[in-house]
């Protein structure tokens, strides 16, 4: 799992049928100190995260498909938690 920060949303009307009605968020990857690494990913949201929030992200296909309960979904990145605080030496 990866730490990320939601930096915005993407709107799309013409898309694959699985993505009908799904929220798509732009998530910046963070390092352990909370600094952006420069990488980003577009992920679907399961926890009602909003822009500016630090989130927990899965970027692995089988785990993501297990969460949405659809073994044929063309899906890899999914937000599974909202992070309150990170303590790291």
């Amino acid at each position: 799992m990866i730490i990320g920060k939601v930096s915005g949303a993407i709107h799309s009307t013409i898309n694959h049928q699985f993505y009908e009605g799904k929220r798509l968020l732009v998530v910046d990857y963070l390092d352990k100190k909370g600094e952006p690494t420069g990488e980003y990913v577009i992920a679907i949201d399961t926890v009602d995260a909003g822009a500016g929030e630090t989130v927990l992200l899965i970027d692995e296909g089988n785990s993501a498909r297990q969460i949405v309960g659809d073994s044929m979904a063309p899906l890899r990145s999914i937000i599974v938690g909202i992070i309150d605080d990170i303590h790291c030496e």
Partner: protein
Amino acid sequence: MHLGRIMGTLTPCVVYKGLEGMPMLIVQPLDKLCQKKGNPFIAVDPIRMCGKDELVYYESSREAALACDPWFVPVDHAVIGIVDDVNLIKMDENQRIEEVK
């Protein structure tokens, strides 16, 4: 998924079984501010709606093949949808949200 810009189309004359009639596009990967990042690649278009210069989002690796019908095809990038709007924020020094375009 990442953002990409359609640069053109590609028409193969012979393809592997299962890929007949599947549109193929040349896609330039972009960063979140829609600036070019990396080298272009070929992606299939299972939604069959994409045209040149369109802003899209694409999926890579095995998930790309799952977007196709039939799904067990040799594909490593697939366009999933057309982007209408990218709405980004940025934090100022007081951690307040500023909108950027």
